[in-house]
């Protein structure tokens, strides 16, 4: 082996990762080559410094306990900042997932895994809302910049539904807009995507795990509203949302 070849193996040599024959060859070279020997000594010293510098990060207080609690009580997953919103988002995605899985879905068999992943992310995310704003003039451009389409963002504050903000979510491998509204003590997630991007029954009206899911069509978009509101209240919200969206309100 040439000097350069040996030189490229020195890291593996000091990590004891070379096979016996190669290791012996490197050892023989080192006896004759001051340059490689000096290099190796400097490398060892630098790594000794790194390993003894105690720069590993200790776990923050409470994390271990939080994880243990979460393992013991998976139904009552807790999280700083997420809490009921996270639970809602997770339930929502699980509900949508469960529903869509039972129906035609144009994409890959990995969907279940993706939905589980999306649920977990939503559950644990510290950013359940990416853009916090009640102003559709803020929310709509933000969504347009994140998505290949520009969804309607109806403002319904005067009718009792405050817009909290929005985020981008995945359903399967399709990126969708998720608008978040507050109605009384309840939140409503409205998932919006271009007509046909995901197949769904346009008259969907069902429930899963305590959440109601209702579809609506507004112009060139499909929307699914998900909330723990009562069926009647969510239907009323859906009609308000649809009417405002159709009237160009957002």
């Amino acid at each position, binding site marked *: 082996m040439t000097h350069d070849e040996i030189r490229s193996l020195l890291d593996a040599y000091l990590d004891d990762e070379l096979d016996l024959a190669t290791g012996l060859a490197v050892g023989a070279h080192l006896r004759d080559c001051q340059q490689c020997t000096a290099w190796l000594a400097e490398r060892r010293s630098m790594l000794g410094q790194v390993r003894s510098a105690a720069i590993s990060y200790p*776990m*923050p207080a409470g*994390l271990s306990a939080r994880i243990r609690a979460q*393992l013991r009580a998976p139904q009552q997953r807790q999280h700083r900042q997420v809490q009921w919103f996270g639970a809602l988002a997770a339930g929502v995605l699980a509900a949508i997932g469960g529903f869509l899985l039972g129906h035609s879905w144009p994409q890959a068999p990995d969907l279940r895994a993706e939905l589980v992943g999306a649920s977990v992310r939503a559950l644990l995310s510290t950013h359940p809302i990416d853009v916090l704003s009640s102003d559709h003039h803020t929310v709509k451009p933000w969504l347009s910049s994140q998505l290949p389409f520009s969804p309607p963002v109806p403002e319904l504050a005067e009718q009792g539904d405050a817009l909290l903000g929005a985020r981008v979510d995945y359903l399967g491998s399709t990126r969708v807009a998720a608008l978040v509204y507050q109605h009384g003590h309840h939140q409503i997630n409205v998932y919006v995507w271009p007509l046909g991007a995901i197949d769904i029954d346009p008259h969907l009206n069902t429930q899963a795990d305590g959440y109601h899911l209702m579809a609506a069509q507004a112009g060139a978009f499909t929307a699914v509203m998900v909330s723990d509101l009562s069926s009647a209240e969510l239907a009323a919200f859906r009609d308000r949302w649809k009417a405002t969206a159709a009237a160009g309100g957002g």
Partner: protein
Amino acid sequence: MPLGDGARTRRFEAVALPHLSAAYNLARWICRNEADAADVVQEAVMRALQYFDSYRGGDARAWLLQIVRNSAHTWIARNRLAGQVALEDNELDGTEADASVISEDPMRAVAAQIEAEGLRVAIARLPLEQREVLILREFEGLSYRQIADIIGSPIGTVMSRLSRARDQLAVIVRGEQRGSV
């Protein structure tokens, strides 16, 4: 999802929880931020529980670290998508603020601490692909084979990334020694 199975959960705890510190340390170095690292570890542990049936014995720490690593990469992809994570090397967390102090502060009494901080900043500045390999090797002492499995790349890739990471660190460490003596 058989989450309710108490015996299974206890078995999982015995296998996985001894490695929480290693899991957090890896996530912390990848995310470069405490709160996000905690989120990532929490998510990864739940994911590991889900996948526990596919754990076939072997090095439990390497198994958990692989899940943590993948969760951290998912976190990065998701947050970068939403424009919430600064691109690599543009912006670091709190350790960045100390960087300017390091080369100028000559106080011997805090030399060791400064040196440690300097290393921290230097490692945090490495590109992600080199940083994670370095952490797995220097802090976790994993073999090239184990690291290759965790990052899903050939051993040759591990070797070259590790060498490049060490080369960069060596340059920085040398520079600091010159600057502070």
